[in-house]
């Protein structure tokens, strides 16, 4: 609806601009008519129509073509100030002018239509490709845990008597892990669709980033003992106005990513700091780092490093980027000089030093 209105409005605007352009050029030519032959004026006006045809829609172009024809006739072709033409050559000139101007308008319009069709087609192909990648990635990422669930439940149901206690426990633990993984994937998909549909409403409120980060880190440390998560509180950090839910998700995704793609015993270091009115979060690891040539694609949707083990959906980093950008922030990825990947998040935000608030 609004789209249609803006288009209408812009066509109206285009008409005004093109009429003004023709009138201006015609006026200039009229005052210069002592020095310029009217045939040259015809060419100048034709050129004006052509230029208008390149930038504007069909309706303003047609109006320009007809208006400029009438102006040519009235102000430049003898007898002046009448629509009457006596000379046969001039009649020919006028008719040819009109035909060329109109053909010009129609041709340019047609070319642009073909171009638009090609663009639409390309866009559609791109969407289909993305959709296919999504389906492939989804069917794998969702079916793996589902297969685990179904399989483990089958074994538990059928071999209840013969299974050792240890095997039963292992199967239950697999069911547990698979359902957590499934939940995580669904969470990611929901977040992605919130970003894609523009339904992401960010609710910024005062947030203790130390506490927030610590909460996320504690959860990871209790579940994962293969990696060392190093987070030192920054006692001098002010409060920031952020969406704590989204920032927690950003941290979860980045830590999860590091845990997934770095070898065991890797240290994942998290720092939170303040620089002027920016909240800065740095997450780095001493793993293998990113291949330099792949860094530019890291935040693309469904992008996954070639030859990496499965477990990610290729959505995590693009969600991270989306959530950071929803805060008008930026995220960069680089390799540490000493090795390992380093993500730097910079979010411009309000800060509050209420630490010395009146406390009575």
């Amino acid at each position: 609806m609004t789209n249609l209105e803006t288009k209408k409005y812009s066509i109206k605007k285009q008409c005004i601009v093109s009429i003004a352009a023709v009138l201006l050029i015609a006026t200039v030519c009229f005052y210069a008519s002592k020095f310029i032959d009217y045939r040259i004026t015809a060419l100048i006006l034709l050129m004006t129509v052509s230029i208008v045809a390149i930038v504007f829609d069909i309706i303003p172009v047609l109006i320009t073509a007809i208006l400029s024809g009438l102006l040519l006739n009235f102000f430049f072709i003898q007898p002046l100030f009448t629509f009457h033409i006596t000379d046969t050559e001039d009649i020919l000139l006028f008719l040819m002018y009109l035909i060329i101007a109109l053909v010009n308008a129609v041709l340019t319009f047609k070319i642009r239509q073909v171009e638009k069709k090609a663009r639409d087609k390309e866009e559609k192909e791109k969407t289909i490709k993305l959709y296919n990648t999504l389906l492939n990635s989804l069917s794998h990422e969702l079916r793996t845990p589902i297969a685990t669930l179904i399989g483990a439940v089958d074994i538990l149901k059928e071999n209840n008597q013969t299974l050792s206690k240890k095997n039963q426990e292992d199967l239950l633990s697999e069911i547990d892990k698979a359902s957590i993984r499934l939940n995580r994937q669904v969470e990611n998909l929901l977040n992605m669709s919130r970003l894609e549909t523009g339904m992401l409403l960010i609710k910024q409120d005062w947030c203790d980033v130390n506490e927030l980060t610590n909460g996320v880190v504690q959860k990871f440390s209790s579940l994962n003992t293969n990696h060392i998560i190093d987070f030192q509180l920054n006692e001098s950090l002010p409060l920031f106005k952020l969406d704590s839910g989204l920032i927690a998700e950003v941290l979860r995704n980045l830590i999860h990513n590091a845990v997934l793609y770095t070898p065991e015993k890797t240290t994942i270091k998290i720092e939170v700091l303040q620089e002027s009115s920016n909240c800065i979060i740095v997450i780095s690891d001493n793993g293998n780092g990113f291949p330099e040539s792949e860094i530019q694609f890291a935040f693309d949707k469904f992008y996954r490093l070639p030859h990496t083990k499965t477990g990610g959906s290729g959505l995590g980093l693009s969600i991270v980027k989306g959530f950071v950008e929803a805060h008008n922030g930026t995220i960069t990825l680089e390799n540490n000089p000493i090795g390992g990947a380093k993500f730097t998040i910079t979010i411009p935000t309000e800060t509050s030093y209420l630490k010395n608030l009146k406390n009575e």
Partner: protein
Amino acid sequence: MNKAEILIIDDEAPIRKLLEIALESNDYKVWQAETGKAGVLMAVNHPPELILLDIGLPDKSGHEILKELRSWYTKAIIILSVQNSEEDIVTALDNGATDYLTKPFRTAELLARIRSVIKRNQRNEESTVSNFGNLQIDFSARIVKRNNEVLKLTSTEFNLLSLFMKNEGRVLTHQYILKEIWGVGYQTETQYLRVFVGTLRKKIEDNPNQPKYIVTESGVGYRFSSSL
């Protein structure tokens, strides 16, 4: 001892089944309703000790059922909600829900919440001195001791801590706390709350960075807990 009766109002059969097994194997008596309407009727005919209410019901919104129940039912109502619905949760808590759980939840968590709210139902007497872990509070003398040593608390800190302790186990929304402690007009000044919770934690927690007493409920509020 009589078995405590719990009414489940949820349209999803698998969730009801799961809750039924979990609760019955922990010695609760379970009633079930598939719709909000049926749930309200059951509660009227036979008021339970606790109601587990799904906020996403098909016939009527859980929020309306909650309001309807709260017009006469004074015992605990725990809301079941889905992830990422902090606004729903805050609304439900403001409308009188006792507590909430987000699906998927852990059974241990569910049972802990149920035990905690039922305990609160039964503890009505308002004693002046209460113990919470290594903390002791004397509400009338306005004294808090930690490991038997008197803590130096400012007036605001004491008010905040006693509000938490009087509502032990219960989630208090930011708005509610701000209104109770600082008064009407301060409901959006969450930075006050963050700062005071920070200073309070430094005084009462063993490790302020891993708080055990004042637990943050992300996007919702805080919960004071002494059982962990």
